[in-house]
């Protein structure tokens, strides 16, 4: 396998890429290729926008006798004298060369090393909660600097200038800038942090955090509408039609996932816990990709508004 494409990728690979079904290396190769290939880019966009076809696929009549159809196909193939034989198997599973064996060995060694370096949690019991001592009450009786107490200001105190909502400047009572507030501990190396976050995004894309499980769960019927079965999805994939996850409402996600960590609201990595106490939640999707939750606590009636940012 070449690192870069000399010609064009196969159409099947483009379809799988559009469906997010490729592995990281293949995806990276195709991304590299797409950067300089307009026709392939168009093809991928076409596949992506063909996702509506899935809805049509999902509405296949339930009365189709798939088992019978499968038998009939097998029978027809057998009659045509085409049976699976060793040569076919040999074509799909050629004898590995020495360097391929070696590379596989190296990969196993590397995998072992990585697992040893970053061990998986032993069990659910391994989760540690803070002890009472660690959560001891820390009283920080703080007085206002300069002994000043808040005085009514008349109107909203303006800040001197505006950059973006992420301004770190504190707004002083008099309208000017106050001393910079110490930011949350910054990464020791910004590039390192970005690389880690990029790895995190990749992991999220690939389902390391359970998105694979999520996808399985999301493929359950929604709102009474029949969805494609696993076999139908497999067939759809085989016929180069990209299989894209059906969007699922927040409430469906709450219902189907329970307290699962893998819950991904609108494709972002943070979410709020599904309400178990009868609290009401209203979800607003923002056009910039963020999500806003308004939660009314059933017991206290207090309203909490959580904004999860896309970036």
């Amino acid at each position, binding site marked *: 396998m070449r690192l870069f494409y000399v010609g064009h990728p196969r159409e099947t690979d483009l379809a799988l890429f559009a469906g997010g079904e490729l592995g990281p290396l293949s995806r990276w190769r195709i991304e590299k290729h797409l950067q300089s290939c307009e026709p392939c880019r168009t093809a991928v966009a076409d596949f992506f926008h063909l996702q509506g076809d899935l809805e049509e696929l999902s509405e296949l009549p339930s009365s189709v006798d798939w088992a019978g159809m499968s038998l009939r196909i097998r029978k027809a193939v057998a009659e045509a004298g085409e049976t699976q034989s060793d040569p076919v198997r040999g074509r799909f599973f050629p004898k590995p060369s*020495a360097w391929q064996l070696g590379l596989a060995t190296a990969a196993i060694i590397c995998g072992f090393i990585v697992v040893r370096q970053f061990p998986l*949690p032993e069990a659910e019991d391994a989760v540690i909660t803070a002890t009472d001592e660690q959560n001891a009450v820390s009283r920080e009786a703080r007085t206002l600097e300069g002994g000043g107490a808040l005085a009514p200001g008349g109107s909203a105190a303006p800040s001197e200038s505006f950059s973006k909502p992420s301004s770190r400047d504190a707004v002083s009572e008099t309208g000017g800038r106050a001393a910079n507030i110490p930011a949350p*501990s910054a990464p020791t190396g910004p590039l390192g942090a970005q690389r880690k976050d990029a790895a995190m995004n990749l992991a999220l894309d690939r389902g390391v955090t359970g998105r694979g499980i999520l996808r399985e769960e999301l493929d359950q019927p929604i709102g009474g509408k029949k969805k494609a079965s696993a076999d139908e999805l497999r067939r759809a994939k085989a016929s180069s039609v990209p299989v894209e996850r059906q969007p699922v409402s927040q409430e469906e996600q709450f219902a189907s996932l329970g307290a699962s960590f893998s819950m991904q609201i609108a494709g972002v990595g943070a979410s709020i816990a599904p309400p178990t106490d009868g609290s009401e939640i209203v979800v607003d999707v923002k056009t910039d990709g963020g999500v806003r939750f308004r939660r009314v606590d059933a017991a206290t009636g207090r309203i909490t508004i959580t904004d999860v940012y896309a970036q």
Partner: protein
Amino acid sequence: MRNKATSVLLGFALPAAFAVYSLTMCCAVQAQSVSGPATLWQDPAQAVHVAIAPDIPLSLVSKDLSSTRVQIMGAIMMVDLKCRLEVRNESTSFLRGVVMGVVSAEHSPGGTASVALPSLNIAPDDTTELNVELKLVRPFPPNTDHAVNVDIDGALFTSMVFRGPNEFDSRRKLVVWEMEAERDRRHFKSLLASGGREQLATAMQASVQRQQQRPRLRAELEQQLRKLITTPRPLVRRERRIQVSRHHFPESPLEIVSGSALVEGSRVRTPKITVKNRSQKPVRWYELGWLVSDGDGVRYTAGLMPAPKGWSRLAPGAEASTQSNHSFVLNRGGAAGGLSIDRMSGYVRNVEFEDGIVWIPTRNDLEASSLDRATPVSVEEQRLSRLYGSQGVEAVISELAQF
């Protein structure tokens, strides 16, 4: 002979070298990180850091992280954050609202969030409980001292006095909610003054009914695979372009000039709305509301449309466009299912001028355009109506008397 040597080189020497290199890199990464053992990070006290900026007149009375759970799976850290803080109002004014910023991974989607508690009324020296419940996923090991930082980003006191770093735009959000609260309290107080408790009770019942009957829509963001392939295309199958009509508010400093979106059934792509600043002051920030109607003329709130990213200000007379490259699927849920979008409209939810003054629509604006039936009520109205539902009109009257 040469072939054999090449085979040996490719088959064993290179993979072995690769393995040694990988081992070295792993060791280097491990040594470079300040993470320490994974079990250390599973301790919530180590993983979660809580802080209050020095200029915020709130003091931390207690913090409880005992229900927080941290799980580490390979290079992924999952934090089920359940943080309960008790803070004391150290100022001489009433505390009206608090916003807490939660940062787990600054550069990842969903790595930052803010948790706001508006519509508070905490007297000086009184304490209140602030709860943060979020599920976070971040890379492991962190390069920082703490995996999750919870900071109080801002606090609003009486007379709209704001304190805090304002990294999450807390000031504008708190001011908007407080202005909406004042507007609605004023409305209910006037009803009480003119028609007594009966009229207030009637208004509360109407509010509860309106909240229950408001047509709800589930707006879902479609998965964005790659920016590369989500570039809007002019010709896509059955899509049609729908123009966005505007809800005109006479006093609004911004006017919706135009807008459109590509619609196909219940799917909306690339909504775009252009606004014009018709005031005399530069605008720092604005937020639009976005509604859709089905064939029966029923209007639904589809979502929020904040000002475009990266912009600085909108000068008087200037225009700005908010466009999203995302694709949304609107669903009524349950048996009603998908929505056939017929029309779309937009309205101005709030505007913040460069001098910090915030504009919100009046109740008359909302009622005149029937938006009060399609849009969610304010946080304060929701709070008061719940109070009415649980404790009756007397509790609402006594609550209104406190402001």
